[in-house]
């Protein structure tokens, strides 16, 4: 069944249809939120709030856009609100973590530290570039879908993705 079929069923009063939508999207939405908040329980709570909002908003959802982009828009806005409410300075990946146990040798540790730095660099990207990168790489969305979620055009979404990649490469690569 497509999303549109499930929505039609839901509007007829079939509550199970909404469970179908939850089953389909709960995992990717929660994992995307987890990437941003870095705490599984927080991600679960925010993700469930997203579905509650969707349930509440479905009667007024006109299906002019796809359910998927609509849901992701709710998810990103809810996560953004959550992060704004957090005390500034508190981050799941703090700068202190990056220092790590410098005395620990080993390739694995270096790799882990590199990944932490990369995550921090992604977090430091301007919001639109960061979200575009996440939606493009992890959610495998095309630029028109990203534009529908974040606003703007497919071209500007593409530009944001390229700029984010350029910035990260310049930070991590020994470029030119």
């Amino acid at each position, binding site marked *: 069944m497509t999303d549109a079929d499930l929505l039609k069923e839901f*509007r007829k*009063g079939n509550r199970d249809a909404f*469970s179908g939508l*939850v*089953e389909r999207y*709960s*995992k990717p939405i*929660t*994992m995307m939120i*987890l*990437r941003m908040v870095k705490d*599984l329980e927080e991600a*679960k709570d925010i*993700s*469930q709030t997203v*579905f*509650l909002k969707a*349930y*509440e908003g*479905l*009667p007024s959802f006109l299906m002019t856009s796809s359910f998927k982009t609509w849901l992701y828009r709710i998810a990103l806005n809810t996560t953004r609100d959550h992060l704004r409410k957090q005390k500034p300075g508190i981050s799941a990946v703090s700068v202190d973590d990056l220092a790590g146990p410098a005395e620990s040798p080993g390739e694995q540790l270096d790799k882990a530290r*590199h*990944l932490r730095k*990369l*995550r921090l660099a*992604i977090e430091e990207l301007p919001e639109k570039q960061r979200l575009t*990168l996440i939606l*493009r*790489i*992890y959610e495998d969305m095309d630029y028109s879908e990203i534009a529908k979620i974040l606003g703007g055009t497919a071209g500007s979404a593409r530009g944001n*993705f*390229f700029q984010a*990649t*350029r910035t*990260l*490469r310049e930070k*991590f*690569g*020994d*470029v*030119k």
Partner: protein
Amino acid sequence: MKNFDCHEVEELILTDLDEGLNQDKRVILERHLAECAACRKTWDETRLLLSEIASDVPEDPGEAFWRNYQISLEARLRDRENSGSWNWGFRSWGFWWKTAGAFALAALILMVVSVGVFRHWSAPPSMEVRSVSPDLINDLDQLYGPVLAEEVTYSHGFDTEDAHLSGSILVTSDDPFGEFDVEDETNPLFL
């Protein structure tokens, strides 16, 4: 073929690693990379960076987590539904459809009744005679000739066996007998 500078090639590299290039642009990129060490390095670094980002996937919390997720979400949905005002919004779909349907039906009935009443009031008075018997027409033809162009008004109606005729009829011409053949009594076929 146009020679691309390193800045333009960087766009090609990003496009190639992101969505892929068409054959023509791929040839341009490969030619440039074969000659330019800096762009080859950019290509390698970008490819490595994107694969690192893509591989940094949080660990799946497992089946138990997702089961618990579903159960606790169901509970939160039930709580919200039982809280009242929010529930009304969900149920209002059926309500609004039924209300809209009732309004549409009422509007249709009102329209039909209005048209009927309007027609009844504005209709012309009914004619006394709806049809004239062929015999009567024949009699009139005998008297006035076949109907053609001129309108003759009978001020007084007259009765026949079939109908009461009043109003107007059309006759053929000024000469009521002009259209009749004059029968020749000398003709052997004349009865």
